[in-house]
């Protein structure tokens, strides 16, 4: 059952562009809602009629398997009709693609568009042209809010709360939309985020967002409750951001030795997909502290909650939502 954080709380967001727009109450409410939906995925018949008759479009301008599948499963478990559109930004005339595509899709009256796009801010642009709700499934190096929410949910599962926790995020912060969503979200919920990586991976003024920057990865990991490694994109070597993956792995890869500095009950997270042996040593990725697969499971529940809430689901309805 959904427990409202406050008696008079109302989820007000039609669109989900980023964690930035969400209050503490919003984040708590989304996670609480997601908890109630998680159980559906473990039933023998994994389907409820909550979003029956709703049309949800996955509009992906960047290749994605996992996020798209997660949103699609979330929508289908709630009986929505889902459609996938994969478009290429490179082949189309610059700029016209997104708006023209949006207008075409809008003419078919979808209820939610889930957008993945290489341009930061693309979801806001899309939302100006359509009636449907827009959920950002990753825009450029900006945000990936559903990932941030599922990360917070996973940590709460293990720690019971976020307030006061030390969260170490290691890797390519500057080019990671997951990092930005996580830094904003965890900080807003009262956790202390420490980021570490070579300076080429640390964006300007990230400390103004509340993150502590550590030049030595050991300082970030020491006494941490959570260690999150970010995926290193292999092409970063060619951008002169790092000289080689080997050197990166040696100085910033998360190994078992490094983890010994963290709290005993530390959990290890990764937004996937993992480059084994680069940002995470295999023994850590598959070790007992890893909660990486729980993140994936929670991802479906978070996306169910987001779809439900942007479609006005918390108004006079329980979380199981037999019908609307």
């Amino acid at each position: 059952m959904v427990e409202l954080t406050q008696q008079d709380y109302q989820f007000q967001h039609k669109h989900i562009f980023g964690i930035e727009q969400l209050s503490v109450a919003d984040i708590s409410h989304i996670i609480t809602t997601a908890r109630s939906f998680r159980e559906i995925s473990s039933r023998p018949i994994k389907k409820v009629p909550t979003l029956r008759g709703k049309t949800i479009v996955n509009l992906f301008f960047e290749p994605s398997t996992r996020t798209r599948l997660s949103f699609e499963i979330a929508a289908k478990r709630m009986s929505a009709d889902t459609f996938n559109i994969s478009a290429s930004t490179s082949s189309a005339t610059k700029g016209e693609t997104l708006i023209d595509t949006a207008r075409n899709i809008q003419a078919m009256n979808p209820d939610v568009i889930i957008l993945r796009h290489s341009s930061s801010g693309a979801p806001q642009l899309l939302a100006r042209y359509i009636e449907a709700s827009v959920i950002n499934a990753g825009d450029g190096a900006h945000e990936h809010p559903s990932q941030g929410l599922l990360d917070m949910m996973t940590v709460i599962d293990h720690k019971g709360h976020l307030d006061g926790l030390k969260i170490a995020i290691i890797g390519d912060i500057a080019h990671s939309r997951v990092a930005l969503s996580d830094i904003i979200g965890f900080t807003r919920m009262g956790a202390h985020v420490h980021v570490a990586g070579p300076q080429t991976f640390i964006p300007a003024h990230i400390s103004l967002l509340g993150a502590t920057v550590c030049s030595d990865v050991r300082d970030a990991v020491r006494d941490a409750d959570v260690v999150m490694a970010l995926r290193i994109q292999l092409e970063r070597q060619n951008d002169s951001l790092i000289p080689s993956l080997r050197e990166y792995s040696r100085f910033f890869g998360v190994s078992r030795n490094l983890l010994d500095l963290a709290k005993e009950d530390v959990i290890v997270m990764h937004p996937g997909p993992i480059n084994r042996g680069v940002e995470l040593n295999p023994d850590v990725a598959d070790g007992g502290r890893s909660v990486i697969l729980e993140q994936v499971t929670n991802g479906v529940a978070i996306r169910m909650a987001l779809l439900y809430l942007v479609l006005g689901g918390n108004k006079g309805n329980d979380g199981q939502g037999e019908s609307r």
Partner: protein
Amino acid sequence: MSKAIQLKNGRIIDPSQKRDEIADLWIKDGMIVDHQSIDVKDADIYNLDGRWIVPGLIDMHVHLREPGEEYKETIESGCRAAAAGGFTAVACMPNTKPVNDNSSVTRFICEQAALSSARVYPVGAISQESNGEKLAEYGEMKAAGAVALTDDGRPVIDSRLMRRAMEYASSHELLIMSHAEEVSLSKGGCMHEGEVSTRLGLRGIPAAAESIMVFREIALAELTGARLHISHVSTEQALALIGNAKARGIRVTAETAPHYFTLTELAVLGYNTHAKMNPPLRTEQDRQAIRTALRDGTLDAIATDHAPHSILQKDVEFNMAANGIVGLETSLSLSLALVREGVIDPARLVQLMSCAPAAILGVAGGSLRIGGVADVTVVDPERQFTFFAEKSYSKSRNTPFDGWKLQGKAVMTMLAGRITYQDL
């Protein structure tokens, strides 16, 4: 013989004569005249009640898009916007299609401008097609009407070519204007690199991309003795370099644009493509430094970098949007705010927007001397109005100031005694 015009009871502000007094200005046959020399009985009289009479404003940095992109702006529409903004002359950048890198394009621009509502001074390209490889024909372009040289927007990367350009320009007594940007450092960036770019996940352009190139240009000007003008300065760092160069006697001048002393990087929040320009809007500290530099003389001129774009270039993803905003019709109002806020006095404003641009470009105007051409702007510093982009005379609407409540504007613009705009 045309009828005489009497601009009566105006506050004449003319730093070129150190004048600031309530008086009448007489105009006849396109010239500013002494009323004792003419028959004053048959004159059109405009009682100005203390509104300002200033030398016609000159915008030394605009993009008129003709030839080649007439759907964004034409010489005629740009000049009408100029007149409405109080400008009697503009200097237009060479990045047209084709590039103004030869005398036939220069001549075309001058011919198109002949009947328009502002003087148009073409600025020729430094290199052929502005691709930074070979010098353009400076002598030919100057003979056709070019007043300066720049590869604006496509900065000359090759330092040796820039050195040659400065030397060769000196031979033709032409000014080099530099859009100072170290492009290997700014590559891929679409706003100022700082807290806001991090929050928005947009790739940033550090202030160093401007100051590195400003330093190179100054070093080359020192080496060659060329006359150098730094366009649209946006950073405190660049100002420090320019101030230092001036103190050492290097022949360098510099301009900024109203958006750099009015807005900061915060204007980009919400992915507002009307706050996207190059150089980008900077920090509050930079904005304050620019205001100080306008007062202390480190900056010589205010120019708009008027850059019309259609919604095809602006209503798109932020990183794909074109750089630049229109500015001709808001420049004076935004600059008058500096006067109200006590940053500069009215005479300094006129210096920045008329006298200095005329002197730097070496063109007519910038003065209300008797016997001079009657390029005159009447300014009502009190008039309050709301600026609506859709009512602009420009063909483009790309401005962050749409809907802004502004105070102070041009209420009459006169080009050689012909009224090109009136809103008395």
